Structures are given as C-alpha cells and as structure tokens.
C-alpha cells in the first residue's frame, strides 16, 4: 500500500485546476456576472474563503477545535464599524479599526490559548464556546457602542461609494470597461478580492513553512512532537493567535464591503456553523478545501432557492414534486445535500478526490 505522496496525483491536479478556475472567476467576477446580487455573492465567497482557511489552520492542520472563530471575525468587523461610525468614512478609521480588531483578537486569543490549550480538546472547545457567547451578549447589550441587535450602519471610504468615479471620459461621465462602470462599487470589490487573496497566500505560505510541518506533527501525534523537542503549547497558542488575527482582518474587510455590521453578519453562531460546514465539506487540512467548501456553500445559500423555484415551476404538472421543490423548503434540501456530501466524501471533497487520484 505504499502510495508515493511526493508526486502530484490526478486528484491533486483536478483540485488545483478547480481552485485556479475559481480564482480566475472571482478575479473577473464584476465583468462576468454583471448584477448586484452576483457581486454580493462573489465578495462573500472571497471573505469566507479566508475565514474558512484560517479556521482550517486550527482544526485541519493543528487539530484544535474552537467555536470562537466568529468572535474574532466579529472583533475585526466591529472594530472597523465602530471607528467608521465615530470618525466618519476614511482610511484612517478602516486601518485603526482593523488594527484594533487584530489587537483585541490577539489579546483574547493569547489569554484563551495560554489558559486552556493545555487542557483536553473538549474543554478547550467549551471554553471557546463560552467566550463566543460572552462576546455575542456583550455586542447586544452595549448598544450605545455596538448598536445592539440592530447593528451599525456607516459609510465606507469615499473611493468605495457607488457614485465615485474611478475613471471618467472627456464629458466627466464614469468610464465603462466591457460595459461595467468603473465606479466605487468596483473598487470596493477589488479591495475585498485583493485583501482576501493576500491573506490566503500568506496562509498558504504558513502551511508550507517549517512551522506548518510542526503543526501537522502536533495534529498527528502531540506527545511525540513534544518528545522530539517542540513546545506544543507555544505552537498551538501561536497558531490560535495567527488564525484569530486573520479572521479579524477578514471581518474588517467584510465590514467595509457591507457598510453594515450587526450580530447576524459578524458574530452569530450561524456563521460559526457555516464555517464548520464549509471546512467539513471542502476537506480539512488542505487550504484548497476551504476554497471549494466556501464556494459551494455560499452559492447554495444564495441560489438554491432560485433553482428550486425554477424546478418547482417546471414540475408544476406532476403531483407532489412541486410541493417538495417549493423554495420554502430549501433548508431541507440543503440538509440532504450535506448528508450526501458527507456520505460520499467522508474526508471532504478535496480530501477524498486527492485520495482517489492517488489510488488510480
């Protein structure tokens, strides 16, 4: 059963091709999909790829289960949101807010890490759950500061206003490229895309670094990693902080894009569950899995209802089927899709495909 792992397998190539294709689609999304909703989806995909990949650093690479990942995402989002609200729209607010979010995330992550990464995985998971609940309660209680349940609306820096003209023609009207207005909305999308790309590339670098090999060693056999001389608690605390900081930056980027931050967009446990599902569907321990998982899940969340509406109309003449395919039952179908995915891709889509290629 000695499958060489050094050579790229067919599955490897398939996965990487898919990821490159997704990257290309996201890169040209404003030109390829010229409607507001599609751009919304593309931006959400970008942010969630980073969020899920940073979570994969924990769960897939190091074997740490945390439920506090949305909390760090929220720190970044609220940091930017509060400062944009207080200081007015400007880059200083975005940068300060982002830094504040990262700083709070680092402090909280270090505290949780040093206090509890020594304990068993299940206790650590419970502690992160408790911390995340506290953050959620605080966000809704400190309403003069966070806007409570309503959240905060604010304006993004001027460059990102839809009315802002990146390039103008001789009449002073906004220039179009392939029919797309070169306005602030486009700039905002590319801000999201570029930030996400950079953060993703940084993480890719980290998992391929010497430190990345230590993380895998800790996941595989913590006791032996310690026995050959790696300070496991220090490494785990470090990766917990790193992943928290990246999640926080993703939160800042998303806050700038949405121009609204509230519990539902930045802190709720629904987001945590989304992250978990994406990482499981995509495949743990492979950065590529985060890409595939985030793309599939976000697209399903946005378009499954539409698709079901079409399907229900198409099957209107058949008894029962239109009822089942009623768009209101989209969560039911999403559930079924998850079960099938987990059943047929037990190691996630990327994990299973890579393995299949290895055998063939």
């Amino acid at each position, binding site marked *: *059963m*000695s*499958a*060489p*792992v*050094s050579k790229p397998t067919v599955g490897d190539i398939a996965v990487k091709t898919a990821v490159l294709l997704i990257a290309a689609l996201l890169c040209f999304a404003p030109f390829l999909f010229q409607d507001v909703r599609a751009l919304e989806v593309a931006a959400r995909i970008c942010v969630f790829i980073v969020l899920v990949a940073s979570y994969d650093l924990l769960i897939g690479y190091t074997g740490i289960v945390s439920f506090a990942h949305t909390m760090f995402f929220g720190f970044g989002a609220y940091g930017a949101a509060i400062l944009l609200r207080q200081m007015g729209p400007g880059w200083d607010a975005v940068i300060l807010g982002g830094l504040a979010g990262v700083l709070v995330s680092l402090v909280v992550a270090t505290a949780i890490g040093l206090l509890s990464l020594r304990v068993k995985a299940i206790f650590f998971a419970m502690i992160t759950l408790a911390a995340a609940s506290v953050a959620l309660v605080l966000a809704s209680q400190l309403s003069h500061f966070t806007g409570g349940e309503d959240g905060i609306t604010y304006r993004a820096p001027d460059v990102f206003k839809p009315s802002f003209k990146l390039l103008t023609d001789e009449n002073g009207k906004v220039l179009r490229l392939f029919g797309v207005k070169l306005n602030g909305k486009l700039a905002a999308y590319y801000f999201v895309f570029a930030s996400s790309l950079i953060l993703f590339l*940084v993480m890719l*670098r*980290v998992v*391929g*670094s*010497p*430190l*990345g*090999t*230590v993380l*895998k*060693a800790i996941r*595989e*056999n913590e*006791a*032996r*990693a*310690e*026995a*050959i*001389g*790696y*300070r*496991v608690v220090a*490494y785990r605390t470090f990766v917990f902080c*790193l992943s928290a900081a990246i999640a926080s930056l993703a939160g800042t980027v998303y806050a700038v894009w949405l121009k609204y931050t509230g519990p539902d967009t930045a802190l709720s446990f629904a987001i945590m569950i989304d992250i978990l599902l994406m990482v499981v569907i995509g495949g743990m321990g492979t950065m590529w899995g985060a890409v595939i998982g985030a793309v599939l899940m976000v697209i399903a969340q946005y378009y499954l209802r539409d698709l079901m509406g079409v399907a229900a109309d198409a099957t209107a003449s058949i008894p029962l089927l239109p009822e089942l395919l009623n768009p209101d039952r989209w969560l039911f179908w999403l559930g079924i899709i998850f079960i099938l995915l987990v059943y047929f891709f037990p190691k996630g889509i990327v994990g299973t495909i890579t393995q299949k290629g290895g055998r063939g």
Partner: protein
Amino acid sequence: MPEPSLVTRDLTIRFGGHVAVNQVSCAFHPGELTVIVGPNGAGKTTYFNLISGQLTATSGQVLKGGQNLVGLSPSARARLGVGRAFQLTNLFPQLSVLENIRLAVQARSGHGWRVLSRADSFTELTRKAEHYLEATRLSAVAHTTAAALPHGDQRKLEVALLMAMEPDIYMFDEPTAGMSLDHAPDVLHLIFQIKADPTKTVLLVEHKMDVVRKLADRIIVLHNGELLADGPPEEVMTSQIVRDVYLGTATEETA
C-alpha cells in the same frame, strides 16, 4: 571514569499508594551502554518516563550536566539532549517516513518557528533526514506514510527519529520488540554504532538475553520499582538475587 552525563538521585514516583519507582539512584556515563532489565511491571518504562519527562517525579532528581531536569517539559529535556524512543510505536502516522525524520532533524535545528519561508528550502535539513533514512535502511519507503509501513519498518523509523534528534543521551525502550529476526540485526547494528561514539550515553530496556549479552557494558536490574543490582553483565547475570527475581516471576507468570 569520566564525569557522569546523567544521574538520577533518589528518583521516586507514587501513584496513590503504589510506588512505581522507588528511590532509584544511578549514574550513567558517556561511552557506556547500560541495559535495564527486570520483570514486567518492575518500573523500567516508568523510570524512562521520569528521565525524559513524560512523568514528573514525586521526589528525587534527574541531573544532566549538573542541571536538574525535574519540572521541565519533555520538549525542554529533548532540547537539552535527552532523546527517547518508545516501546509502543509512536510516530506521525499520516506523514511520510521522510517527513517524520525531517521533523526530528528540524526540531534539533530550531527552525520550527520559521513561518514565512518554505519548508523544503532548508536543504541541509532534508539532506540530514536522508542520511538517517539511509542509516536505518528506510530510503526505499521514504514517501510511504508511517501508518502504511510494516511493523518492522515502523520500529526502525522509531529508532531513526531518535537518531535524528542527535541527543547526548539515547534511551531505547525495547527497540526490537515484535521485530522479525531479519530486521532486528539492523536496529542492533545502529545501536552498536551509537555506542561506539565515546560522547554518547545509551540506556536500553531489553528482554532478549542474547541482545543484552551482545550490547551491554553494564546491567542494572529493577524490581518492584527498586534498584536491585548494578554491575558488569557477567556479574549481574550470574548473581543469585537476579536469578531469584527472574525465576520467581517466571513461575508466577506460568502459574
């Protein structure tokens, strides 16, 4: 006789009312291979765990070069040159053989905290790892995952990990356990090579008497957690007290 490289002084650990290792005082010297024998449950592996840090002593000291190791983590002790191979195979199962060894080389090199450089750009680490691959005759399976190896090769990898740590103190816990006859000589040969280096101290837990005879410079006998005998092989193996212990347990075990 040179300065001892490792000393245990009144080393004791209690688990509730049970004293698993009881006031064991012993000094080990560079260039010396000490075999630790004793019936099952004598405390041999526990003694190893106390030295390498998997367990913390209730009382007593573990001294290496005058520094007390008690209270230090296993990783700190490993960085101070105390290396340990395990009785039950204890590898990184889903990583390849080369990656396994590379991790041990890298731990020694201190490059583990490099975050933004590429792991495979450290060619000297890979070269060193390949050296240990060859030394343990595992080159052919370099890219196989550790979990997919046959038992004999897993035992060899266990030894290779210890060698790649390049410690001052080598601790082998039944390195040939469960190994077929054609694999065991490879491992014994490796231990022989380490022993030939006068700066290295080797501790070996072993049951097979022919192995003990071949390798030992000195034998210590543990029984019920206590140090029962200590001396050159021929002396210890012919002593009445050791015969009593071994024969005693032998009859208990067969009964």
